[in-house]
């Protein structure tokens, strides 16, 4: 039970991280119509800058400065590069971000090397935030702050710690969600963004200083990605392939949630985050199920390769299965109003 | 005599706004109907409903005896209806010749074939050639559609609509944005090319309307206020009230 709870919490924290990424991507797409292929590259940049800055000045300054720096970089990219191809249409915009992803990957490998860098969380984030202790599925569950003592975990008791880094991730993400919500619903800029989420052309014709808003949105979006990068990089691993792994899942999230919908992105992030995290822990396969239910054709069920596949082995493809199914059944996504 | 195009109780709602509030219309074969009305009356929406761009919220539309409401645009076209657009809607990256040739392909039965060469399809090429000459665009056959002048684009827009030799034609403000002389020339062209076809035309220019139309349908607030011959419509009190002098002014020019 406690294992399930911890798994669920892990999944939720990963989902919230995905939301930090997909929120920025959704904002950029909604305002500017450009799907930023390099969004995960900014995530990676955030992680690497966070690593360098935290080695210099500590984790908290890095947490603030890295996103700011990357956001400025993003705004600069928008102003001097993206804007130039805006006139050519959406495909060239997508292509230029695609090219940027290539370039960023190369530069990161050039500056920091091709293997993972040891970006460790600070001392106060190491260890568990709390630990769930249970004697089994039916005895009382109780939890302690921090790590459980040796004694408490002996015998039939099971101790499941919940890492502090994950808790921190959830905390930052929730703060971000709330501030974003407040910004969008209570400020003028937020109103403009809300309008642009569903009617970008109308917003432009209303005379808002569109170029400046674009730059702002791109900067904020990439800054959010970088913030996610600092946290994700210190919690998981900081290496050149981190952009590719998290990038495609982010695209799945925004499509499943519905292009242009922040609420949809939130829902889809949590859904995909939890499902993928929890699937990794389940070692059951379709043939196990077949056998348990006593269905006919046991022999072939036991040997067929795709039936022997456990859920944990299939975990990497689950988001993409979601994507394909969603696009077949409901192309708008969960809550989308536009098809892009 | 069954009408070629029949609308019965057609409604269209967008969210909370009802743009078309119950339109009944019967158009007979060979008639030329002009649809006029103030801005926002729903003229373009009506065309969109007939041609299949949107489905009506309510009501039925019949084309040549067959029900077409709710069908997709390609299906409606195949049943014998072609439309032009108010804002030019061409294949910008293709030449004038190719634009026209694409429009003749389905009606000549070529379907989605990838085993015939275009250059060997005499019927398609002949029809395209004839259309080019009728439109007076022969000298621009290899020009990309996006590089044409506005009037030439409108002519090409018309051409793409006419390529299929459809029975029923919907022309949405064909002379929009044209000068006086261009309009006169263009209207003569339309009259010539669409001889024998059933024509529905949205127009703002009253001169054009009176010159070309057999019947006028006045659309106000999503309803047909009057559907009659031009002279009758001119006399209609309601229409006069809605249009306040526009008809009189046109009559003055026309006389």
């Amino acid at each position, binding site marked *: 039970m406690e294992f399930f709870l911890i798994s669920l919490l892990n999944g939720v924290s990963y989902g919230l991280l995905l939301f930090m990424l997909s929120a920025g991507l959704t904002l950029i797409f909604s305002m500017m119509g450009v799907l930023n292929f390099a969004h995960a590259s900014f995530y990676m940049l955030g992680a690497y800058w966070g690593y360098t800055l935290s080695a210099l000045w500590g984790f908290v300054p890095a947490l603030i400065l890295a996103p700011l720096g990357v956001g400025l970089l993003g705004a600069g990219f928008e102003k001097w*590069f993206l804007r130039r191809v805006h006139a050519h249409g959406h495909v060239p915009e997508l292509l230029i971000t695609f090219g940027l992803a290539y370039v960023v990957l190369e530069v990161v490998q050039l500056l920091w090397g091709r293997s993972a860098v040891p970006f460790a969380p600070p001392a106060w984030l190491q260890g568990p935030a709390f630990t769930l202790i249970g004697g089994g599925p039916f005895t009382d569950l109780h939890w302690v702050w921090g790590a459980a003592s040796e004694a408490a975990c002996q015998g039939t008791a099971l101790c499941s710690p919940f890492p502090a880094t994950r808790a921190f991730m959830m905390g930052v993400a929730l703060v971000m969600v709330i501030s974003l919500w407040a910004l969008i619903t209570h400020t003028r800029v937020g109103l403009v963004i809300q309008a642009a989420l569903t009617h970008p052309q109308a917003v432009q014709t209303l005379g808002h200083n569109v170029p400046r808003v674009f730059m702002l949105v791109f900067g904020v979006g990439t800054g959010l990605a970088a913030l996610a990068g600092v946290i994700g990089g210190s919690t998981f691993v900081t290496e050149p392939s981190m952009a590719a792994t998290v990038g495609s899942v982010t695209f799945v999230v925004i499509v499943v949630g519905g292009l242009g919908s922040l609420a949809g992105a939130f829902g889809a992030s949590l859904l995909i985050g939890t499902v993928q995290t929890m699937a990794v822990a389940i070692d059951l396969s379709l043939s196990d199920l077949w056998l348990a239910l006593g269905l006919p054709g046991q022999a072939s069920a036991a040997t067929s390769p795709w039936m022997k596949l456990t859920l944990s082995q299939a975990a990497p493809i689950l988001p993409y299965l979601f994507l394909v199914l969603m696009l077949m059944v409901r192309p708008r996504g969960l809550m989308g109003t536009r098809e892009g | 005599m069954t009408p070629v195009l029949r609308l019965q109780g057609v409604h269209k709602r967008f969210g909370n706004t009802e743009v078309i509030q119950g339109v009944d219309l019967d158009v007979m074969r060979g008639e030329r109907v002009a649809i006029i009305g103030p801005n926002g009356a729903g003229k373009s929406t009506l065309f969109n409903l007939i041609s299949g761009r949107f489905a009506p919220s309510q009501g039925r539309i019949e084309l040549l005896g067959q029900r077409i409401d709710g069908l997709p645009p390609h299906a409606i076209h*195949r049943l014998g209806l072609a439309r032009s657009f108010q804002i030019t809607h061409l*294949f910008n990256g293709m030449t004038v010749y190719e634009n026209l040739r694409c429009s003749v*392909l389905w009606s000549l039965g070529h379907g989605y074939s990838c085993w015939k060469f*275009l250059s060997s399809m005499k019927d398609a090429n002949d029809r395209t050639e004839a259309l080019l000459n009728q439109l007076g665009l022969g000298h621009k056959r*290899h020009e990309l559609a996006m590089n044409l002048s506005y009037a030439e684009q409108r002519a090409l827009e018309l051409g793409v609509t006419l390529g299929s030799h459809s029975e029923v034609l919907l022309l949405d403000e064909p002379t929009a944005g044209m000068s006086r002389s261009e309009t006169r020339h263009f209207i003569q062209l339309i009259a010539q090319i669409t001889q024998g076809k059933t024509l529905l035309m949205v127009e703002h220019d009253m001169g054009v309307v009176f010159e070309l139309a057999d019947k006028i349908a006045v659309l106000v607030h999503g309803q047909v206020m009057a559907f009659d011959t031009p002279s009758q419509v001119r006399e209609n009190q309601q229409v006069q009230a809605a249009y306040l002098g526009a008809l009189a002014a046109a009559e003055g020019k026309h006389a």
Partner: protein
Amino acid sequence: MNPAKPLRADPFAVHPAWRWMFLLAAFMLLAPWVFRSPFAQAVLTQIGIAMVACLSYNILLGQGGMLSFGHAVYTGLGAYMAMHALQSAGSAGWSVPVSLIPLVGGVCGMGFAVVLGYVTTRRSGTTLAMITLGMAELVFAMSLMFTDFFGGEAGLSGNRVQGRALWGIDFKSQTQVYALIAIYTWVCVGLMYAFTQTPLGRLLNAVRDNAERLSFIGYQPQRVRYLAFIISGFFAGVSGGMAVLHFEIVTAEVVGAARSGAYLLFTFLGGSSYFAGPILGAVGMVLSAVLLSEWTAAWLLYLGVLFVAMVMYAPGGLASMGVWHLRWIMQPAASRLWTWYLGCFISAAVAALGAASAIELFYHHQLQSSVGTPLRWLGQSWATDQPMPWALAALILLLGLAGWRFFKRQWDKTWETMAPPRSGAAP
């Protein structure tokens, strides 16, 4: 009036096709005599394979306006199926002659396109791009899961030297493989060009330009995209099958994102709005993977920067740059422009040299400085820890940029005084 030969504006019918096909055949015939080494012939073979792959990709990108991030799925799955056919050809029972293996790839590529393409082409634009991305990731992830079919990390290997050797052709030598690939390539290029001259080919262009209008002239845009997808899948599969014969091994990277990205990158660089563009792109793809990667460690960076620059300044790719050159050179008053053109060209070359020098210095500094060896660049040795090479590189770059500014301004001034060029095909 023969409408089959419009001369200027339509990029897909620039010249009578048979002339070019003959030229291509002649080139293919002569090439192995000029480039005799097995290595050079291997490169030529790879170029042929890449040409078919990039042309099949351009059916989607340039002709149909469909941005696909997962083309490697079709080339790769075609390759896997072809490999299975090659492996089973050795064992008893039915067997496919080695020379027909590429067709197996083609048919299977087409089959996958029929199944996967239906879902993919229901949408267009960004959504379609996202579906292709998802499909590509799905297939790649599956390739690591189903080791029976995909052969796991080591992949699958086969032997093309098997079965009866007809007329002494056993495909042992690279020249024989080259000959087979060349024939397939020639036929595929011809067929794909022929496709552009059919109704479906034009309808595909129409779908790219204005899908909605197409539906109002009686065609379903979805259907056009789907059919084009299937055709593209066939040729993609043929390319995969050819690769199986040449490399005799297939690993998971053939369905990977990097491969799909390479198709996109090089087709775009070659020029997606001209039929011959992907051919240029394919040459670039093979040469940069085989040669450029040997010359410099920074080759991926160069490609990325080149790509970004192309998107910004020449979105029509190399082909459109070629056409642009042709157009101004053939103008009557072109002689006035030559000085400025040469000036611009040399300045750009100088600037590129400066930039490349700086990048090479930086790469060497990062990767090799601990070892202490100097950088070998342009036949000289440069010590990366000294300021002199850096300053020199910066100076050259600045010189090039200044020259560019000057000559470009002169060019613009002269250009404006000349008669405006006739409007024609846009890049």
